[in-house]
């Protein structure tokens, strides 16, 4: 009854086709909730700081810093989004990234001690080894969650402690120095004024966007998160899906580890400790439904940029990291409150859930 009849409503048909066109154009899902909200937020955040402190905020250094800080956090946030898409979570992402960075640094230093030139030549092998550590960590998570059926938050809390513990024991809690110079070169160079690392971030985002929206695996990940029971009755092998998802988040952590070490030729067990919760904030802010089934990569990318803009804006205004933490929390709470209000309005137009007697 509430549905417009498409034949009598040419305007609504036009709207639909415009919508469909956008969808196809962006290829990253409909512009709905998360993405639209983040587009507004990212512009507002940028405009506010550009207006308040244009001399510092709009400087080339500051903008390049935003582009340099975003990739590692963004890649981990996209991994978090994938885990949340299945209705799970992955707390071990940062620990896996550090372990991957430590592996690469250790390998390089060990080989370089004997033959520095060989160590440089082995650069691709070292890179792959680092990423492989991430994949392995992800596979362990996946097996615990899909095979043994441990709740994701507990399984990854456990492995986070394990991976972190291994990293601390391995490094003796010290910071390791040393990485292939090619990697460092990539980390410090720009193309067309934009850091190469940022291109890597965009590439990863596009690739995961394609996986989520354009492959059978991505469709199944979404459906598994939307309704595990219906997924089972539709012939979706949930174990395989969960295993693949956590292997994928492990892979992204491995890539994040590469980004860590490309930015600074150092690796340590406690790098990015604040990222663990930050990436949850980013994923949810970007429109990821923590109950599973709904998320867009574009939303998460925009949320990453927003928080980086706010962070560097705070620095430009000489505000402290604690004040930035407060702002982070406020942005999340405000965005969620906004969502709740909208949700409640939608519920009100439906039948009331409980009839008072």
């Amino acid at each position: 009854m509430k549905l417009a009849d498409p034949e009598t409503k040419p305007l609504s048909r036009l709207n639909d086709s415009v919508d469909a066109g956008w969808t196809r154009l962006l290829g990253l899902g409909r512009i709905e909730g998360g993405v639209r909200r983040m587009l507004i937020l990212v512009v507002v955040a940028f405009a506010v700081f550009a207006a308040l402190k244009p001399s510092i905020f709009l400087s080339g250094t500051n903008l390049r810093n935003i582009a340099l800080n975003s990739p590692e956090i963004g890649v981990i946030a996209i991994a978090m989004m994938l885990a949340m898409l299945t209705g799970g979570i992955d707390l071990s992402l940062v620990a896996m990234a550090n372990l991957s960075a430590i592996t690469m640094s250790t390998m390089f230093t060990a080989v370089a001690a004997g033959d520095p030139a060989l160590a440089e030549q082995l650069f691709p092998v070292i890179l792959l080894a680092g990423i492989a550590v991430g994949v392995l960590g992800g596979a362990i998570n996946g097996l615990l969650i899909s095979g043994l059926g441990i709740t994701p938050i507990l399984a990854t809390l456990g492995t986070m402690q394990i991976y972190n513990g291994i990293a601390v024991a391995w490094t003796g809690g010290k910071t390791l120095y040393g990485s292939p110079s090619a990697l460092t070169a990539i980390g410090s160079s720009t193309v067309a004024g934009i850091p190469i690392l940022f291109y890597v971030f965009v590439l990863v985002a596009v690739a995961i966007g394609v996986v989520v929206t354009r492959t059978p695996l991505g469709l199944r990940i979404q459906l598994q998160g939307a309704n595990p029971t219906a997924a089972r009755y539709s012939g979706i092998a949930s174990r395989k899906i969960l295993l693949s998802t956590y292997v994928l988040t492990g892979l992204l952590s491995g890539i994040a580890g590469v980004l860590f070490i490309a930015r600074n030729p150092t690796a340590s067990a406690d790098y990015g400790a604040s990222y663990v919760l930050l990436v949850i904030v980013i994923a949810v802010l970007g429109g990821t439904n923590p109950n599973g089934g709904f998320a867009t990569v574009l939303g998460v990318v925009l949320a990453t940029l927003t928080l980086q803009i706010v962070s560097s804006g705070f620095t430009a205004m000489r505000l402290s990291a604690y004040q930035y933490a407060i702002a982070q929390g406020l942005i999340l709470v405000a965005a969620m409150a906004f969502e709740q209000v909208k949700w409640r309005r939608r519920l009100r137009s439906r039948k009331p859930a409980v009839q008072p007697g």
Partner: protein
Amino acid sequence: MTSTALKGPSSPVLEVRNIVKTFGGVTALNDVSLDLLPGEVLCLAGENGCGKSTLIKIISGAEKPDSGEIIVDGNTYSSMDPTDAIKSGIQVIYQDFSLFPNLTVAENIILTSAVADRRRLYSGRAARPAAQAIVDELGLHLDLDADVERLSVADKQLTAICRALVSDARVLIMDEPTTALTHTEVDRLFVIVERLRSRGVGLIFVSHKLDEVLKISQRVAILRSGKNVVTSPASMLDPRAIALHMTGQELDETRHVSELDAQSEIVLELEGLGLRGAYEDVSFTLRRGEILGVTGLLGSGRTEIAEALFGVVPHDSGVVKVNGTPVRLHSINDAIDAGIGYVPEDRLTQGLFMDKSIADNIIAGSPNEHTTRFGTLDLRAVRETIQGLFARLRVKAPNVQAPVRSLSGGNAQRVVLAKWLARRPRILMLNGPTVGVDIGSKAEILGILRAEAAAGMGVIVISDDAPELVACCHRVLVVRHGRVVEILEGDDVAVDTIREKVAA
């Protein structure tokens, strides 16, 4: 049924006059007027989307009408709010009953009225006698201390009725009260309804099930496209006439089965299938192009047999052959690989991804059948499949991106069906395919099944709706206490025979 004495020539307990309600330019109710006498059962019938739920919401105060008035006991309201409605004695029992599953029956009966009275402290001991009084008055056998989640659907419903009566309901509106009940439970409900009538309660039944409606109601009001097309004594109507008013077209519920070639190959064969405690020695065959009905009471084992064939709860003895080859059915994926599809009974949780789009739901079962050689989804093929099924099954929605949650029961069921047709299984089982589906959709769904069977699919319809089985099934299998007790064929496939065998 009209024999129950009404208390005097009474005036209506509830009247609605000239109600108009529009949603964003679409007229949901167009000048609807109704009245309800004390001690009367009025059936409100109509297809999904005809406006009956909107009308109920307006009466119960959940929605405000654009114009018109609601008169309760001579007091005129231009619109209700939920508190007014409850204070005037209007109670709605929705399909999900809105009970608290973790509380006991007594607590459920008392709690909401205690909350409405703004009582701050709750005493279980004080609550019991009031609950007991209602239960005794209606002559029910309800265990007041049982947790509601452990009750059968029928007992949950009775709990909801008791809860309504505790707050002195004068008008009781029940949404699809018989959908989830077996025949015996429906009979029990109707006994209670008679008792309510003798207390002077006016009842409005919202229902799809025509034969039941006619048995219990004194009057029937039929809505079509937001208009009250007829209000008439039930004795003046028969199912055919009601269907005509509801759809505006003749309903075909006559038997329509194709001539089945006796030589056509057997696609499915069960030999002595059994599962301890559920069913035993189940043997039957299904031919290519055949529609086989499976019926029996709730708990007879009919659903368990279907779930065994779909690998949900595997059988522990016997053999299943598909196209003559024995197959292993240890998981749902085994069954799907063997070419078996299943439209489950619980459409909302097992069949559909409610918040996902129609498109995602249709393609959910067959993404691997729509890939390019790079392993990505072939968007063109996906779109063709989705649009093709969307059009062929005539799903009523603005476009395929609409979430399934926005669809009516009949349209949602078409989406589940589309999900399986996108895969083209050899054997398709449907459990309760038309439960909660309006009659127009019902006829169309049966039509689709006939067409699929004619194209070579083997179809199994599990249902307790006898007319539906008669309308489409070549043969009907009757399950009782976990055993196949009867296989009806030819002229034996008749409504009365089926009901008799099921209840025996």
